[in-house]
């Protein structure tokens, strides 16, 4: 791998990043979990690869407010040593930055306090279902963590400003549950990636959960049951899981005050719950949801007290899934409303 050492003591993202925003590609002002971003593209034809997942965060520019630059560029020219990596690789950069390298298809994310976010890759990399559904997820996660938000592998939906975190291991049905509720009128916050306020940002004894991406990964059977088979597809993941765009199909909302933890139980013949469960039990489900692409000791030290306080304060309910999706939606709404009535402990 060719080395491009920067000046000693500095923490640049990458000396190969020389792309500049295209003159004809517009600037998109976004506000994600309270952070203002200025999203630009090196080529206008890259916009459809990113905007469907984050377009719902469009926001008016507040005069004088600083915003974080986010540049998306392709890598159709040039020699990129990043592609030499054989597997997904995450590097923590000096100065608090992070760099994620995905070799096949090529895709790089960099986030650094001095440069903002840079997402660059081959056309295949930027157009992959993983990137289109969660563009610059690692970079955004690092940026939001610096601003006091923890990215979690959870779903979330909202009713009247109150929200449920939908918690379960991979394959438990988070996406199906979130979309079942959204199809029935709840606000969709996310199906498997959301940001949660840290303890310093809580209001009235509860955290706010923030949306990141307006996309969902659904197995075909769930998609058929939800009527999502005809929705705009973003491709298929490496595990051949279809990814769909949800913006315009359901009501997408940017945040909600967490009044309930919903712990998903394995499917059965009938939908069960919401059944109140103990905080300690909820915590066992919540802990492994810490975002799984750059976990290290520092992230775990931040997460442990936050997860424990969420479990202590927010009422938790178990829901046993089934194919009666309106019943699943009803159970989620019941949990949100029951949690809101009970209030934080």
């Amino acid at each position, binding site marked *: *791998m060719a*080395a*491009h*050492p*920067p000046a*000693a*003591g*500095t*923490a*640049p*993202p*990458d000396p190969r990043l020389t792309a500049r925003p295209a003159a004809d590609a517009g600037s998109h002002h976004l506000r994600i979990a309270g952070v203002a971003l200025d999203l630009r593209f090196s080529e206008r034809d890259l916009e459809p690869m990113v905007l469907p997942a984050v377009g719902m965060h469009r926001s008016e520019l507040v005069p004088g407010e600083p915003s974080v630059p986010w540049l998306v560029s392709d890598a159709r020219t040039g020699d990129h*040593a990043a592609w030499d990596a054989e597997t*997904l*690789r*995450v*590097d*923590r*950069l*000096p100065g608090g930055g992070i*760099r994620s390298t995905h070799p096949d298809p090529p895709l790089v994310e960099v986030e650094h306090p001095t440069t903002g976010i840079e997402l660059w890759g081959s056309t295949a990399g930027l157009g992959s279902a993983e990137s289109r559904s969660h563009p610059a997820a690692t970079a955004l996660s690092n940026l939001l963590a610096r601003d006091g938000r923890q990215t979690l592998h959870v779903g979330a939906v909202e009713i009247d400003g109150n929200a449920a975190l939908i918690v379960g*291991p991979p394959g438990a049905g988070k996406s199906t549950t979130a979309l079942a509720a959204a199809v029935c009128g709840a606000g969709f916050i996310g199906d498997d990636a959301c940001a949660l306020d840290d303890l310093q940002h809580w209001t009235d004894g509860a955290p706010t959960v923030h949306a990141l991406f307006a996309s969902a990964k659904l197995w075909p059977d769930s998609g058929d049951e939800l009527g999502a088979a005809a929705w705009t597809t973003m491709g298929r993941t490496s595990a051949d899981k279809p990814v769909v765009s949800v913006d315009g199909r359901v009501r997408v909302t940017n945040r909600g005050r967490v009044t309930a933890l919903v712990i998903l139980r394995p499917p059965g013949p009938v939908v069960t719950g919401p059944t109140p469960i*103990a*905080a*300690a039990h909820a*915590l*066992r489900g919540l*802990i*492994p949801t*810490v975002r*799984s*692409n*750059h*976990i*290290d*000791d520092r992230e*775990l*030290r931040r*997460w*442990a*007290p936050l*997860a*424990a306080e969420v*479990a*202590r304060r927010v009422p938790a309910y178990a829901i046993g899934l089934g194919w009666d999706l309106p019943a699943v939606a009803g159970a989620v709404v019941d949990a949100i409303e029951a949690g809101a009535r009970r209030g934080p402990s």
Partner: protein
Amino acid sequence: MGRTTVDQGRAAHESVEGETLVIDTLSGRLLIISGFGSAVWDALVEGADVERLLEEVGQRYDSGAADAVAAFVDTLRGHELLLEETAPSEDQADAAPSGQTSWPDAFVQPTVETYDEIADIMTMDPVHEVDPDLGWPHTLPQPAPLPPTPG
């Protein structure tokens, strides 16, 4: 025997409803401690002479309780979450064996459940620290993989 303490540099821990959640931040392994184990953990957080602690447990409850606590402490040692001081320091020599711990009225078998979801991810996708002087792509040496611990 000296004083035994929780390795606070490695273990992040929280108590919820009488259970203690411990995350080994080095490996990512999650431990859920319940029963009498939470009281023992609290004592070890403060620092305790384990031999004297076992005597106290044996006198307060019974010898079976002391054996169970000894096995529990060994489990924590197996997870490398404890630090041992080979000789008591002057200000600790006369300290109570279990510090200020208030023991529960009844003895409930201490248990440790382990979960490796996060540990597996950290093993598969470790985060590399970039050399602050040389910058990317130069990374600092990775720590050696952790040996298997009792699960």
